[in-house]
C-alpha cells in the first residue's frame, strides 16, 4: 500500500510517524512523509524535517520526505493523495486539553471530511 503520512509538528504527528514506520516495517507499505506548517502548534518546517529524518535514520526505515506548499495543508494533503494515487492518508491528531477533552484540529477535520481516500487517525 502507498501511504501518505502528514506531519505538522504536533507531538501526536511524531507519534503517528513512529507508529506508521513500525507498521510499514511489518507490512512493507511504501511511505511518503508530507511535511507542513501547522499554525495551531506554531511549527517550523525545517525543524520538522530534521526530526523526521532523525527518526527515519534511527529506525533504518526508508521513506520519501517532501514538503507541502500552500497555506492550506489539509487541502494539499487531500489533493496530493488523490492526484498521485495514494491508498491511504495517515495523520496524528486528537490532542487532549488539561482537563482531558479530546479536540481535533482544523487540518485533521478538513482531511476527515474531504478526503476521497481512506484516512487513518492515530491518537
Amino acid at each position, binding site marked *: 500500500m502507498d501511504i501518505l503520512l502528514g506531519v505538522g509538528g504536533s507531538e501526536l504527528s511524531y507519534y503517528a510517524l513512529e507508529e506508521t514506520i513500525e507498521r510499514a516495517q511489518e507490512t512493507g507499505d511504501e511511505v511518503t512523509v508530507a511535511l507542513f506548517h501547522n499554525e*495551531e502548534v506554531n511549527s517550523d518546517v525545517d525543524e520538522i524535517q530534521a526530526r523526521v529524518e532523525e527518526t527515519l535514520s534511527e529506525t533504518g526505515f526508508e521513506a520519501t520526505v517532501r514538503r507541502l506548499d500552500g497555506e492550506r495543508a489539509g487541502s494539499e494533503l487531500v489533493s496530493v493523495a488523490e492526484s498521485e494515487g495514494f491508498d491511504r492518508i495517515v495523520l496524528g491528531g*486528537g490532542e*487532549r*486539553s*488539561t*482537563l*482531558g*477533552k*479530546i*479536540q*481535533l*484540529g*482544523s487540518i485533521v*477535520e478538513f482531511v476527515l471530511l474531504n478526503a476521497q481516500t481512506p484516512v487513518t487517525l492515530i491518537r
Partner: protein
Amino acid sequence: MSRDYPDEPADEFSRPPRTVTDREGRDVELLSADATDRESVLEMYLSFDPADRAQGIPPAREAAIDDWLDTILGDETYNVVAVNEHSVVGHATLVPDRHGEHELAIFVLQAFQGAGIGTELVETLLGLAQSAGLEKVWLTVERWNDAAVALYKKVGFETTSAESFEIEMSIRL
C-alpha cells in the same frame, strides 16, 4: 492563539453550599468538593453510562479514571458535586489551563439528567469561581450536543468558535 471572552462580566452566581429541588422533586445538595471527596466522586464515575461520555471523558477503565481524578481534583482546580441521598449524582469541575484560564466540564448521572441539575451545578461552580476571583472560564462541547449547548447559553456562555467539530464557548466572571 488567545481565546476570546465576552466584554461584559456575568452577574453574580449562587455559591455552594446550597440545596435545590430538581424537576422530579428530589432534593439535591450542591457542595464544594476537593481531593478529600475522591472516593464518592470515583463511585459516581464507576456507575457512569458509557453512552454519556463526551470527547473522551470520563475515561472508561477504572485505572484511567483514577489518573484523571488526580488532574481534576488537583491543585488550583474547583469542584462542585451534586449529592442526593448520600451519593454523588453530578459533578462539575474547573481545571486551569496553561494560560491561567479555566476549562469547565460537567457530568450528571443518567437518572438525574433532564431535571435541571446540570444548570444548577454549572451556576454553583461559577459562583465558587467568582468567590475565588477567577475571571475567565471556557469549555468545548460537541456540535450535536444540543442540550448541553442550550444549558451553557442559558447560564451566560457565549460561542467563541464554531468552526470545528467542537463548539468553543466562554464566559467572563
